[in-house]
């Protein structure tokens, strides 16, 4: 059953990924992108990382893809004629891609299974070896994905968390620097001044 689901999601995501690049209408390609994200989150659920799967749905589909769609619909993009260009570059792309794919496939004969290596692997003291009586039910830990993330992200890998924060700060500064026009000659409403105004005192008669 799992294999069927895996094949379904992965083949669909590959096909949709191809269609993202090849479809002429940009709105169609954004919609296919959304479909790719859906399929990938299905794959992630199969892997058992449901937190990442929901993150994909919420962040990529909910925020980014919708934003893309919004921008694409706002711009009036003429659908260009790619055909001649594609046929010119297609053969060399196929040759290079196939060559590289073959090379990669030659390497990937083995499965991507991680070898757990630690130099003192056999020497580590483990509670299981010391205590003859083990309370198994206390050792069975059922924690959710998000708890696992939180328990390492804020302790051992807090550095990553902080640096990701700095990267987000950079992107924020960059967006402001590149798009915000600071102009003095614009007349803005100052709402607090307007609210503060006492209408009885606004018009003042002077003797001159």
């Amino acid at each position, binding site marked *: 059953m799992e294999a069927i689901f895996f094949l379904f999601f992965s083949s669909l995501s590959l096909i949709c990924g191809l269609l993202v690049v090849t479809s002429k209408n940009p709105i169609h390609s954004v919609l296919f992108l959304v479909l790719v994200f859906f399929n990938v989150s299905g794959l992630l659920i199969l892997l058992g990382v449901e937190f990442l799967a929901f993150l994909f749905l919420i962040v990529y589909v909910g925020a980014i893809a919708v934003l893309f769609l919004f921008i694409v619909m706002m711009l009036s993009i003429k659908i260009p004629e790619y055909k001649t260009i594609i046929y010119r570059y297609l053969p060399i792309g196929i040759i290079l891609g196939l060559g590289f794919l073959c090379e990669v496939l030659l*390497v990937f004969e083995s499965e991507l299974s991680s070898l757990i*290596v630690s130099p003192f692997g056999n020497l580590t003291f483990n509670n299981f070896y010391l205590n003859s009586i083990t309370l198994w039910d206390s050792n069975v830990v059922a924690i959710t994905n998000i708890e696992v993330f939180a328990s390492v992200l804020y302790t051992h890998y807090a550095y990553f968390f902080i640096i990701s924060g*700095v*990267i987000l*700060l*950079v992107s924020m*500064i960059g967006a402001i*620097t590149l798009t915000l026009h600071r102009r003095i000659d614009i007349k803005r409403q100052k709402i607090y001044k307007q609210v503060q105004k006492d209408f009885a005192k606004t018009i003042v008669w002077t003797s001159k």
Partner: protein
Amino acid sequence: MSFKVELIAMAPEIFLISIIQYLIIYGVICTTSSHLNYPILVNNLSWLSLQVLFFLGLMTSYNPLTYTLAFNDLLILDEFSSFIKTIIIVATACTILISLKYNHFERINAFESIILLLLAVTGILLLISSFNLVSIYLAIELQSFCLYILAALNRTSEFSTEAGLKYFVLGAFSSGLLLFGLSLIYGFTGILNLGDLFQFLSVSPYNVYVINGINLASLFILVGLLFKLSAVPFHLWAPDIYEGAPTTTTAFFASVPKIGILALLTRFAYLGFYDIFFSWQELFVISAICSILLGTFGALMQLKLKRLLAYSAIGHMGFMLIGFSCGCFEGIHATFVYIVLYMMMAIVSFTFLLGIYQKKKLTRLHYLKDLTILTNSNPLIALSIAFVFFSMAGIPPLAGFFSKMFLFIVAIQSSMYTIAIIVVLTSVISCFYYIRVIKLVFFDTSYLWVPLVRLDREKSIMVSVITTFLVCFAIYPLPIIYSVQNVLYFIVRNQFDLFYT
């Protein structure tokens, strides 16, 4: 290890990140305040950031800890990293100093440019002391994001926007390749730490599948890093971005980030992947020779100074990779001596680009033929241009000759004779375009007397100090050579430490 020690070990970076927050708050509040009449803070923040960099340099070079791992083995602090960090801080201070007047002339009023420069320096400093694949990736992203924005800073100019966009698209692609390589390594070995990777590769070189997989992964990593170094065949972005980006940014591009990436490559090639170095060697050699050839023959045709410098940077990167490809201690020693001297020459040559203005029209040096005005107007600058370009070409009594000579000696010692011959021949050809610059300055003198804007104090001090250094390097070359020797020895020693403990 107690947490306090880690904080001391990484004190410079923590200081930098926290001071950047204050600078941002200061800039945002001041530039938007109507009481102060919306001041332009670029100059002010430049001097503030120079102060920050001064303290940062002190903290880096007087760190009481010399060798430690920090934050759960994610970062490493050793003599090598603190040496490279000091060089980077000094070079950044130099680029900020030479860009003071430029911002004024070109009306680059966004104070964020300085903040982004400091953030890029943070990224590079963290990159140098990264010891974990994920922290390496994060640090690279931090620095390259800042560089993308810096390239597109002058948003009214089409060239600058084009440069930023091009750099962003190509850089994102190369980061993707790098990340793919890193994830393949994790997939094949389950290791993220570079020291663990070294141990793993040194004890199990017979598992063919894993080694093949790691070779493939290291190919991806190498492509990503060579892109950032602008080595051929991943150089295509370099000339356009050098030309399009604001010249201050180009000065930063040309000098600072490359040594950071090169230090990272040293950690990869001489620590993490040292046991499979032979599979990297061919790639290094091919990339180096192609870079030298393209840097030489591409620069022959250039008419613009910035593009000329971009091609010369590609060629110099090829020379550095030659030293890298030897796979021995002397090789990286020669490479790092080369890059330190090259950074000096790059900074001086960009000082000329930034500092020479015609008084009436306020036009800068764009084309090579603009150089003809210099002999009459300012003979001292003309003389120092001659020294710097002779040094870049590698004419004997100057510093550039020695850095090239060390590389040739190392290449011959590790019996790469063909490569050495090719490199010497191309080096002779490359003399042509450097010396053409000098010929334009001294012998094609136009008889127009063009008054130039006076070079300001900071630039003239810098030009004179560095030019004197380049001239006098032959008399007393030992300080740089010894210090590079000292710090690089630690890299080699780290291998033994990791292996025997």
